[in-house]
Every structure is written in structure tokens, then in C-alpha cells.
């Protein structure tokens, strides 16, 4: 157990350093993009008849920003804000903390992507086992081809295809948005139904585009394990088929858990195009909006959140591995 704790501590330290580095890089990149929205606003206020002093004061109150502060000062302000989980104030939504905006958007990304990923993972690994066992037959071929095909179609093409099919040709599902405004938000059938209806196409897009990867990865993993000596050894010892099957499944699924944890880390940033296509108010949609509006605070915040999610997923994947794989757990000597 101490080994896991030590591992966790090491990971956290490294993760924090990485987040700090990323925060620094994004800060300087974002601040050096041509076109400074703060300066623009500040000048606009002056043009409106405000004295430079008053304008400076107004900008500071509204955005927590000092127009004549040095880059270094802004950077230290930003970092000290970070440690208090204060990502600044959104430029386009004066007075609203970035963290709040991100939090609001994140749930629209996390739930559908999570649903899509888990759905495709479950279906993919189960069919992957069949694709491996029946790999010399027609069923195996069909499964493998379905995987390659779906894996090969870009996610956004898939999204548009689904819109064309299910919203235009057979109009049974809404093409965009997250919920009908007709319904009172809350725990009522109409609202929840509308939520679900709007989520079907995005979730289906995530699920279908990820499915190919899972089925192919699981197939090759199972084929590898099937060729392992210990499977034949277990059969030659007369171990029951059901137990041998469990040996195969557990060994084959192991490497896929890492992939799953990593793909969950990409979950926050991976939906940019799709949310744009479905006009779904998640993080990706927010990120595109913030770029268009030059909302630098929001942009840096979104980048940072996506980075942090990926780093955390890596840590989780590694720790998870420690729990499920005795070879990683062991280290030195007997357990």
C-alpha cells in the first residue's frame, strides 16, 4: 500500500509541475496573440469620455486587469490566482468567473462523451472477443471490417452523416441544441426527455467513432493472449472452459484499460468539432466561441482544464494499472 501512496505522491508532484508549465506556456502564447481585447476595451472607455484613470479603474474592477501592468506582473497575478483556483474573469461575460463558465459548459461535454466512450468501450470489447475467436470465419471478418471502416471515418464526417440521416432524411431526432426551451428545467419528464433526445446524435457520434478502435484493439489483444502458453497449459490441466475464458478476458482487457483512462482524459478536449456541428453548449463549443471573441481568460482557462484532465487521466491510468496488474504492483521481492 505504501508503494501506491509513494507512487501517487510522485505522480501528483509531476502532474503539478506539468500543469504549471502548460499554464505558463498558454499564458504567454495567449498574451502574444495580436489584438488585445483589454486594451481595446480600455481605449473604448476613454473614447466614451472617461478619464484614463477612471477607465483603468473600471477595467480593473470589471476584469481584474491592469492595462499598464507589466507582462511579468500579469503573469504572477495569473499564477497566484491559479493557486486559489481563480482563473480570472471572462471578458465577454463581464463579472462572471471563468471557472463558473467552464463548469457550466463542462457538464455538457463530460456526460455525453463519457456515455459515448463507455458505450463504445463495452460494445467494442465484447464484439472484439468474438472477432478474435471467430477470426477465421465470416463473422470475424465482418466485425473486423466494421471496426476498420468506422475507425477510418473522421469524427466530424460521421457527425454530419448522422445529422443527414436522422434529422433530414428521416427526421426523428433534433439536429442541434441541447434541450428544447419549451420545457421547464428540472426533474420532469418533458425536460429530461428533451435532454435525452438532443443527446442521442452526439453520443452516437462519439460511440461510433470510438467503437472501431476498441474492437480492433480488443481483437488483437485477445488473439495475442490466445497464443500465450498459459492458456494451452490451463487447457491441458483440464481447467474448465468458463475459467479459461476468464483468464483470457482478464489478460486481454488489461492493456485496454490504459487506453480507456487516456481516452477519458481526452474527453474534455476531444469534442470541439462535434459540439460545433450539433451546436451543443459544451467545452469545445465554448472554446471556439472564446477564440472568436478573443476572450483570452476563457481561452487559457479552457486550455488549462483540458491539459489538467489529460494529466489526471494519465495518473489514474497508472494507478489503476497498479491495482489490477500484480506485475506492476510487485516491484521488488515477494508480495
Amino acid at each position, binding site marked *: 500500500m505504501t508503494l501506491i501512496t509513494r507512487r501517487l505522491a510522485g505522480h501528483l508532484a509531476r502532474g503539478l509541475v506539468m500543469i504549471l508549465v502548460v499554464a505558463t506556456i498558454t499564458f504567454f502564447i495567449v498574451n502574444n496573440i495580436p489584438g488585445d481585447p483589454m486594451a481595446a476595451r480600455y481605449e473604448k472607455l476613454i473614447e466614451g469620455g472617461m478619464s484614463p484613470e477612471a477607465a483603468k479603474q473600471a477595467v480593473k474592477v470589471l476584469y481584474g486587469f491592469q492595462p499598464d501592468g507589466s507582462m511579468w506582473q500579469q503573469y504572477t497575478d495569473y499564477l497566484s490566482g491559479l493557486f486559489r483556483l481563480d482563473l480570472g474573469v471572462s471578458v465577454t461575460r463581464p463579472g462572471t468567473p471563468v471557472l463558473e463558465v467552464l463548469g457550466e459548459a463542462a457538464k455538457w461535454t463530460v456526460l455525453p462523451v463519457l456515455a459515448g466512450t463507455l458505450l463504445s468501450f463495452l460494445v467494442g470489447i465484447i464484439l472484439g472477443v468474438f472477432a478474435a475467436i471467430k477470426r477465421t470465419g465470416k463473422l470475424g471478418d465482418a466485425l473486423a471490417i466494421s471496426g476498420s471502416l468506422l475507425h477510418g471515418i473522421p469524427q466530424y464526417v460521421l457527425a454530419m452523416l448522422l445529422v443527414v440521416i436522422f434529422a433530414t432524411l428521416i427526421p426523428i431526432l433534433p439536429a442541434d441544441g441541447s434541450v428544447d426551451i419549451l420545457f421547464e428545467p428540472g426533474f420532469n419528464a418533458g425536460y429530461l426527455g428533451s435532454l435525452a433526445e438532443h443527446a442521442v446524435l452526439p453520443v452516437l457520434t462519439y460511440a461510433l467513432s470510438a467503437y472501431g478502435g476498441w474492437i480492433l484493439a480488443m481483437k488483437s489483444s485477445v488473439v495475442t493472449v490466445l497464443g500465450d502458453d*498459459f492458456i494451452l497449459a490451463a487447457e491441458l*490441466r483440464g481447467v474448465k472452459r468458463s475459467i479459461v475464458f476468464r483468464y483470457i478476458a482478464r489478460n486481454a482487457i488489461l492493456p485496454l484499460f490504459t487506453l480507456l483512462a487516456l481516452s477519458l482524459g481526452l474527453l474534455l478536449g476531444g469534442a470541439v468539432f462535434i459540439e460545433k456541428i450539433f451546436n451543443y453548449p459544451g467545452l469545445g463549443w465554448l472554446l471556439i466561441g472564446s477564440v472568436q471573441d478573443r476572450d483570452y481568460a476563457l481561452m487559457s482557462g479552457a486550455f488549462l482544464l483540458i491539459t489538467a484532465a489529460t494529466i489526471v487521466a494519465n495518473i489514474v491510468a497508472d494507478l489503476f494499472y497498479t491495482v489490477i496488474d500484480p506485475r506492476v504492483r510487485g516491484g521488488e521481492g515477494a508480495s
Partner: protein
Amino acid sequence: MANQAPGVRIDGLTVVYKTPAGELPAVRGVSLRLEPGSITGIVGESGSGKSTLALSLLNAVQPPGRIAAGSVEIDGLGDVTGLRGEQLRKARGKHIGYVFQAAQNSLNPLKTVGKQLLDLGRSHGVDDLRGLVREARELLGRMGLDGARVLDSHQHELSGGMRQRVGIMLALVLNAHLVVLDEPTTALDMITQANILKIVREVHAERGLTTLVITHDIGVVAEVADRLAVMYGGRLVEQGPTREVLGAPRHPYTQGLIKAIPRLVGDIDEARALPGRPPALATVPKEGCVFRERCPSRMDVCDTVDPEPTADGPRIVACHAVTAPVAEPGTLDKEHA
């Protein structure tokens, strides 16, 4: 369950593998008896068909291979080539123990040895699992290991020699009395090798087993086996009591093998390598003797007629040059009675 060493009679066994060039025999017309309580060694080069022969004893030839002809009669089980499904599964492990090559990973890397032992027990309907664990611990202790610790270990925590002993334990723990060891000492260092062979000999005697050892190492056979069978190109070319075969080999292939062994004393050049290379599945001659390409005593008849195994006392040799050919065709009698 038979509580004494069973005898095994392999008759005319042919195992073919499906290849793009059709079905090719890896083992052809092999007849061999394992006397109850004996240790038999099978030696042969890689690809001679010895592992395929060993797997046939459990009717476990892996696809694309299949047993095309012949029978394997085991006392208490009948002809195993006819066993299917559950019957076959229950015979494996309980009647026939199979020990894998030491270098191979014959254990599930994710489970402790103890948990795999329990899986084995449950598979064979053992009610007294505590008794099974006790038995396993005793067996491991008998082989010089700390049983409790080994049962609590994963495969990666065990050395090659320890794994091999675990393999032997798993083959014996259900009280199987026929044990097949496939390359039991390959990839082990000399000291561990000697240890394992000593264990094989002792456990064989103590538990009253019938043992079959497959190896490419004549030294291993000389160490443990009562009887020795030499395989070449899917055929058994010579068999007999180990001392007699090694002391006075009759088949040119056996003679060549023994000449190729370097001696500890004397000049290294005294060891003569056998010229040529052994046939692969696709290059085994369709007719005539399988060894003729490398044979120093090759005759015309060898090109066309496959020499039949012919018994002379306890020894059986399949070679025209040995059994004075042409005049009388070799007898089909495999029993050296």
C-alpha cells in the same frame, strides 16, 4: 480413478498438419509402449514431431493439426483419441499430468499460484480444497520449496527452476499417474537442471508413476529414462532400453547423434556433427526412408521402401541396413515379445 501407474499403448499414430500444400504428417505411423511404472524418454531434433507426439497423449494436438490415424490406449481411460468435450477435459489433469517447458509461461500472470490451484481443483470437482492446498504445499516442500510462500506468489516472482517445480506440482496434485514432461529442463542452468531431474526421478518412484520425458538433450534421457525412443522426421527410428541404445546404437541416426556429443575429456574435434539438416514438415520424403539424405549407409532400397520398425529382443529399429532388407520385408510386429 486408477491408483497405480497406467500402461500406455500408442499404435500406428499419425498426426497431420493442414498447410497450403495439403495435409502433411508431423508424426507418421508411430507405435510405442509405455510400460507401467517406467520412465520413457523421447529424443529428437526440433521439428521431429516429439512435442506433437506428446500432445497426442492428451488428444491435444492444436489446430491446424489433427490425429489422422492410430490410437493411444491408456489404462483406465481407453483410447484417448476418441475422447471429446467434458470427458477429455476431465481426463486431463486428473489422469494425465502435463508439464510444460520451463521457459514457457505456463501460469496466468495475473493470479497467484494458489488461486490457480483452486481453479484447477474446482474444475475437477475437488470438494476438499483445503486438502488440495495441503497436498500442493507438501509436494512443493518435497521439491525443496517453501510451499506456503510459493502458493502466495505470482509467476513473475518465481525463478525458472521454481516455475518448473510449480508445473510439476500442478501436474501431480490431482493424483495423476501418467505424467508427460515436455522439455522439462530446457532453458534452465545446469545445477537447476540436475535438481529438476533428480526431483523427476524421486517423485516418479515415490508416487508410482508412468512418465514420458520429451527432450532434445540426450544427457537428460541418459539421466532419467529406462527406455529411450529416438524420433526423426515424424518417425520413431529406434527404441530400446536406454543403456543398450546409448551403448550400442544401431540406427545410423542414433549413431550420428551420439558421435555429435562433445566429451568432457579428450579433443573437442572428436565430436562429429551430423551432416545436413533435419527435414521440415514440407520436406519429409513422401516415400522411402526419412533419414536417407543424411545416411552414411544409404542403399537403393532406402529411396523407395520405408523401413518398418523391427523388433530384436527389447530393441526396435527401423532401418534397412540393420534389419537385412529386401529378402524379407520388416515385420509389423511392434511388440517385442
